[in-house]
């Protein structure tokens, strides 16, 4: 059979951010993958270095709509690192709570999407029902469901009351019970196992060498979790152990996320119980008090996130601002996972690294020999290849 290029993207359901993958396929098997990224390159790094440090927090928040909290958290930590600012303890606890709620909603979102792709729509709906509870909790604390703008340089924007603490505890308690049930379903249900087990396998050694991060790395037995290894915010006082699965397949990567959602509930509960009193912010200078370099590494829902900032004394804008996002780090790894797999497994493998999702896109099938192009709707493709 002649080699065929299967082009996925720049806009495709498995990719919320437009990226293009050209799959060389032999029959049903993917033999090679060529990624092409940069379709939504907005020049944010350049824009960050042309705005003031305070403006940068809000621009950094817009790097990603789903994990916006972790971007503001990393940005303020990097700037505080460069400025040499100590943040009050209570603020660090509040940051941790909102950060973990953000992770919960992100994980529940992708778990739901993964279930939908497997053809398990009931579980998809259940995951997303619980995600709504988390969104409401974010609103209770920050005043907004999505773009919370909660973290500021030197602390957080607003305090939390005892009434809010009891509301959060109530909601999280019942959610933990439901999540344990979903975990059982993921472990036992034949549909989930048939679609995920041994799909998109990547060995531990390759995962590490290719620099994969987050649940993608931890699903292959690589023990890297910034929260456990390089504690930031309140993680030095709320100990955390990384969730690691050794299977290395899509199932393991999704299981890491379910377990982490349960762990997040524990972290939030511990933070609420141990919440210190005191101020939630300290006054900070607008311009850099010293010439220094600051960086912050945090564990975003999708993996390790890095912000690196160069500040110059007396200037209110950074000289250079660099962001390394987790999906970018996972691209070499996902390309390797897809090789040797079936076309039918592409969506599940892609979703298992959580590259965000949209559902209106199309896939082009191109026959390289005849040059003939056919554009089909992704749902047609899914129906064709669903097992």
């Amino acid at each position, binding site marked *: 059979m002649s080699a065929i290029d299967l082009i996925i993207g720049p806009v495709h359901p498995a990719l919320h951010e437009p990226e293009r993958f050209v799959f060389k396929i032999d029959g049903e098997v993917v033999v090679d993958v060529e990624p092409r*990224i940069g379709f939504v390159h907005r020049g944010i790094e350049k824009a960050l270095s042309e705005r003031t440090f305070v403006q940068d927090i809000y621009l950094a928040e817009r790097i990603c709509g789903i994990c916006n909290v972790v971007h503001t958290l990393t940005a303020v930590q990097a700037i505080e*690192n460069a400025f040499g600012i100590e943040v009050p303890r209570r603020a660090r606890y509040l940051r941790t709570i909102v950060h973990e709620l953000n992770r919960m909603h992100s994980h529940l979102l992708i778990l739901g999407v993964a279930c939908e792709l497997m053809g398990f729509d009931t579980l998809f709906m259940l995951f997303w029902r619980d995600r709504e509870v988390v969104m409401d909790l974010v609103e209770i604390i920050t005043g907004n469901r999505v773009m919370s703008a909660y973290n500021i340089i030197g602390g957080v924007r607003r305090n939390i009351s005892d009434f809010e603490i009891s509301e959060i505890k109530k909601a999280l308690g019942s959610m933990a019970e439901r999540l344990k049930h979903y975990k059982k379903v993921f472990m036992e249900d034949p549909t989930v196992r048939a679609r995920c087990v041994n799909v998109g396998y990547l060995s531990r050694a390759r995962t590490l060498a290719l620099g994969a991060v987050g649940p993608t790395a931890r699903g292959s037995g690589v023990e*890297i979790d910034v929260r456990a290894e*390089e504690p930031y915010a309140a993680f030095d006082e709320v100990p955390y152990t990384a969730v690691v699965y050794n299977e290395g397949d899509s199932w393991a990567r999704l299981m890491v996320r379910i377990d982490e959602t349960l762990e997040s509930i524990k972290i939030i509960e511990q933070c609420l119980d141990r919440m210190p009193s005191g101020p939630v912010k300290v006054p900070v200078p607008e311009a850099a008090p010293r010439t220094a370099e600051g960086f912050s590494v945090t564990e975003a829902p999708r993996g390790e996130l890095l912000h690196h900032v160069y500040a110059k004394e007396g200037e209110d804008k950074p000289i250079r601002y660099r962001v390394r996002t987790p999906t970018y780090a996972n691209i070499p790894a996902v390309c390797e996972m897809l090789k040797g797999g079936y076309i039918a497994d592409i969506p599940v493998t892609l979703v298992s690294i959580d590259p965000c999702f949209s559902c209106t896109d199309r896939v082009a099938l191109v026959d390289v020999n005849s040059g003939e192009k056919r554009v089909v709707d992704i749902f047609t493709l899914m129906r064709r290849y669903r097992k």
Partner: protein
Amino acid sequence: MVEEYPKLAETLKNELKEALLGYEHIAEKKAFVALVDRGSLIKALELLNKISGGEVHLTSINGADLGEREMELTYFIWLLPQKIRVLVKTRLPKDDLKIQSAVKVMPAAILYEREVHEMLGVVFEGHPRLERLFLPEDWPEGVYPLRRD
């Protein structure tokens, strides 16, 4: 962990000798920062690979234009067994932006080097495919958006 810093400093000093231009370990930054000569960068990375028994994670390669004369590259590395964050830094003069590619030592460098190349114009010698990564196809040759000159 902080206790491992002196041992790491000793190893780097013994192996790299004059090529190690400076080092510091900053508790506040929770990192070990080593400035190496650009000719010995690969040797330094190989050394870190050896120290950790291959259990090394390349987090990122960041390039920064420091002004008129120099460009700074920072390799963010995490050593898994020692639990140390190492920042390997090297400086390149702007009239000769060439450095050995790290892809053979750390395969994760493949995309980061392409990005630094297109954004700042650093040439990584020995990179298997030093092409555009983020910028569009019709972006003019020789224009590097993150340069400050």
